[in-house]
């Protein structure tokens, strides 16, 4: 992004990572400092709760259109992700957690493509880290409750069938996986996707603005058409990514829980 920024002339506002760190709206420097990104997150939270609350309140045995869509997503996640990975018996214990996580991440992601909000609050690592830690705690406690504390580490770090020579290596890798890599990758994958998505989408906006308004000339107007259609393409892509990343987060969470509670892996 620095490359674009340095090459640009006076009028070009290149999107940058600092979009995610605006000035505080209130509480500057305190633990409750509040800014635009967090306002977007609160709005997304309220919108999610209002929409889902209305759907749940009006839920009938014979569903309306909105209820049908929500139920379709719900059923899909339950059947294909939760029960698909964990099996129905085990999955029943985790379906609320995983489905709620999906809806939350999706709500926080989708604000990146909503005009006026234009930022995905999951681009900040804090919230994805909190979600990853929740999943981490859940799969650790599930594994320990299933196998006992010692049993869990034994099953996880020393899989049967490994040659004696590679056992320490496997144990080390698995330990790193369980305590660090899995939660870290869950959080990082989501945040980095949202940051990059925002930069690309914002670039199409600012480049179009630049080509058509700030530095309008024959050739630049032509370039502007490319970036203008880029807006539609990137918006569609970001909507897709918003769903996909929420799905991946939940799918991997289910897989990690399954690894913790399965007999052997």
């Amino acid at each position, binding site marked *: 992004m620095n490359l674009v920024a340095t090459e640009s002339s006076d009028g070009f506002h290149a999107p940058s990572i600092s979009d995610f760190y605006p000035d505080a709206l209130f509480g500057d420097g305190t633990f409750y400092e509040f800014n635009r990104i*967090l306002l977007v997150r609160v709005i997304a939270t309220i919108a999610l709760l209002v929409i889902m609350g209305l*759907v749940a309140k009006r839920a009938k045995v014979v569903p309306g259109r909105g*209820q049908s869509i929500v139920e379709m997503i719900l059923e899909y996640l339950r059947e294909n992700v939760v029960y698909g990975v964990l099996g129905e018996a085990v999955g029943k214990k985790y379906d609320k957690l995983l489905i709620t996580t999906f809806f939350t991440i999706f709500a926080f992601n989708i604000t990146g493509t909503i005009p006026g909000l234009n930022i995905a609050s999951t681009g900040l*690592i804090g919230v994805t880290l909190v979600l990853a830690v929740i999943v981490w705690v859940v799969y650790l406690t599930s594994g320990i409750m299933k196998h006992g504390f010692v049993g869990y580490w034994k099953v996880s770090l020393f899989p049967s069938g490994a040659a004696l020579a590679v056992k320490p290596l496997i144990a080390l890798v698995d330990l790193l996986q369980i305590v660090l890599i899995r939660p870290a990758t869950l959080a990082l994958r989501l945040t980095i996707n949202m940051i990059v998505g925002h930069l690309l989408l914002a670039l199409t906006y600012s480049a179009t603005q630049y080509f058509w308004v700030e530095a309008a000339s024959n050739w630049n107007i032509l370039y502007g058409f490319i970036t203008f259609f880029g807006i539609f393409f990137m918006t569609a892509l970001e909507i897709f990514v918003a769903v996909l990343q929420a799905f991946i987060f939940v799918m991997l969470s289910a897989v990690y829980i399954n690894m913790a509670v399965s007999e052997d892996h």
Partner: protein
Amino acid sequence: MIVTPQAIAILAAAEEETHNPLIPEPFEIFWSLIPLAVVFFVFFRYIMPKLGTVLDERAALIEGGISKAEKAQAEAAAALEEYTAQLTEARAEAARIREDARAEAQQILVETRDKASHEADRIVATANKQIEAERQQAIVSLRGDVGVLATELASKIVGESLADDARQQRVIDSFLDELEANVKAEG
């Protein structure tokens, strides 16, 4: 104050350095926990159970409907079977009745034929008897007539002199002619 592009770039770079996107700000963690806590609480307490209940209710309703439909179908199948059985029975009954009627008709025909035959025999016999009776009567009557004629003839023979054979022959012929004429007249 003059702001050059270079200055902007430097400022931006400096700002980016102070905000490592991989290190969370404490206030952002705070503003993560509150919305997530609210969302998870409402979803766990209200939204998911409510939707789950509705889904379960629907599943129960559909299953109930299916079992009801199955029952109705089974009943219909039983009724059909019963009707088919009844129909078969009715057909057999009809065939049996038809067969009986045919046999009875045959019987009646045979009886009628016998009766007619007997009647014909009886009529013939009666006719024969009548004929015989009439014949007897004719014989009796003829015999009476022949007596009378014989007496008449004898008296004629006695009353008239029989001079020669020719006359004799004539008398016999006239007697026989008379007799024949009498018989014809009687017949």
